Every structure is written in structure tokens, then in C-alpha cells.
């Protein structure tokens, strides 16, 4: 008779472990976009680079299908010296360029995608690490 509570505890522990195991993939599936403050800038940048189709023109490490050969490859970007041949490669300059590529370089093939401020910060963070 005295064994019963022990068994109950084990059950409860098992149940809790099961719930945690279930919750981990559910939580892992949920990092998302612009507004979600829990998402890291690097992850936000990775999603933004994908969703703004940057890979149709650029080669970018870590982005699926990003093998375009229209613009310069963004592989090893952190060590690049200049942006588009006209701006020193600093985070501030990259943000400025992404916001209006055709203002920085008139006649530029690179279009002005509608990027949010956090998305731009995300792309800067992502490229700074790759």
C-alpha cells in the first residue's frame, strides 16, 4: 500500500517529461517574422533573405537555393571591403544601401524591396556572420 504514492510521482514525472518533449519542437517551429521580439536578428535576417528572394541574384551561404549569378556573391560577406563598389562595408552603410540601392547606385539592377527596419537589421546581422 505504501508504494502507491511513489508510483504516482513517477507517472507525473513521466507525463511532465512527455509534455516538455512535445513542447520543444512546437516552440522550435515558432520563430517568425518582423514583430516577434523573441526571434534573433540573425534568424530574422535569414528569413528576410529568403522571403525577399535575394538568392535569385546572389549566392549567399546558408540560404537554400541562393545561387544567383546576377549580383556579386555574398559569401564571406563580413570580410568584404566595399558595398556595390561605392560604399565602405559598415553595418550603417549596408542598411542605407539595402533601403535604397538605386539611390546609392543610379541605374542599379538591384531593386528596392520593401524591407522593414528590423528586417534590414536582421540582414545586416546575418551577413555580418557569414
Amino acid at each position, binding site marked *: 500500500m505504501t508504494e502507491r504514492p511513489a508510483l504516482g510521482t513517477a507517472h507525473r514525472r513521466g507525463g511532465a517529461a512527455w509534455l516538455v518533449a512535445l513542447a520543444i519542437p512546437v516552440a522550435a517551429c515558432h520563430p517568425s517574422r518582423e514583430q516577434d521580439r523573441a526571434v534573433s536578428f540573425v534568424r530574422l535576417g535569414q528569413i528576410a533573405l*529568403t522571403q525577399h*528572394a535575394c*538568392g535569385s541574384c546572389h549566392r549567399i551561404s546558408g540560404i*537554400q*537555393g541562393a545561387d544567383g549569378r546576377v549580383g556579386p556573391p555574398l559569401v564571406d560577406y563580413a570580410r568584404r571591403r566595399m558595398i556595390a563598389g561605392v560604399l565602405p562595408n559598415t553595418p550603417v552603410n549596408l542598411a542605407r544601401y539595402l533601403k535604397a540601392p*538605386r539611390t546609392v547606385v543610379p541605374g542599379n*539592377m538591384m531593386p528596392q*524591396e520593401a524591407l522593414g527596419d528590423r528586417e534590414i537589421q536582421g540582414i545586416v546581422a546575418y551577413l555580418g556572420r557569414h
Partner: protein
Amino acid sequence: MRPPLRPIVAGWFLGVMTCGVVALLVAALFLSGIAFRVGADQPHSKLLAWAIHRTMLSSVRRHARREVPRLPLDRATLLAGAALYEQRCIACHGGPGIARAYWVSAMLPTPPYLVDASARWSHAELYALIHDGVKMTGMPAWGEISSDREIAQIVALIEAMPMMTPDQFAQLRRAAAARRR
């Protein structure tokens, strides 16, 4: 000594039944929406994204017809192609120096820019992509509502894109718009 037949048959039967039950359970997980969420605000897992994309590439390559119309890349063809591209393509795919509509980045999969398309796809594959469309991407089967000639005009414009400057593309758009009026 031969093993008796009965246990082997029973074991085989049990194995098949187990596989069947597991397959049904997995199918039930998907059909009930527990194992898959269709919401497009989350990217696919890397494996699934790779598998879907691989399937799409292989299918287009396999099913593209060998003999498709090819038009000369002259001014008349490009003007006609530009007029169609303006109506049907530019919102989702943008153009040289032209951004896609702002809401397109919310699509999953998101439509690509096409300046590089003629390097990724053969003439027949481009024709097939536009003519037949692509399931589960939002790409319409334009062949359902267009003549073969119109499809060939769009293909011609896309194939001419990497030979244009953004300014020339803008001029072509203006000329195509002026001709429509």
C-alpha cells in the same frame, strides 16, 4: 531441417499488419493537421523545403516538351512580351531594377526574380513553367488562357532580360504601355 511454415507466415503477416497500422497512424496525424501546419508564416523545415523543391525541379525537367515555339528576340516580340509581362508577371517577379509588389515577400514559396532564369532553365523548361504553371506555389498555368504565341513572347522577354540594362527595361515598359493606349 526446414523450419515449420506456419510461424514464418504468421510472423510475416504480423510484420505487414504492424507496418500498415503505423502508416495509418502517421497518415491520421497528417490528415488531422497535428503533424503539419499549412500556415505560410512559418518556413518549411529544411528537409521538407529541399524535398519539395527537388521534386519541382525534376518534374519540370522531365515534363518539358522538346518542341516549343521560339520567337526571334526582335523589337516587336519584346514589346509584345513586355506588355504581357506587365499585366501578368511583374507584380510577383519584379524585373531588372523593378521590385516585386510589397506583399510578395509574404508568399511561401516566394516568387523569384527572373533576370537569372534563362541561366537556370532551358528554353523548353521556361516555356513549360509559364504554360503549365506550378502547383502549390501560386504560379498560374498561363497556357490555359493564352495562345502558344503569347507564352513564347513572355519566354522571349525573360530570355532577353540579362541582355538589358535596367534603363532599357524601363524604356521597353514605357514603349509597351504607349502602344496599348
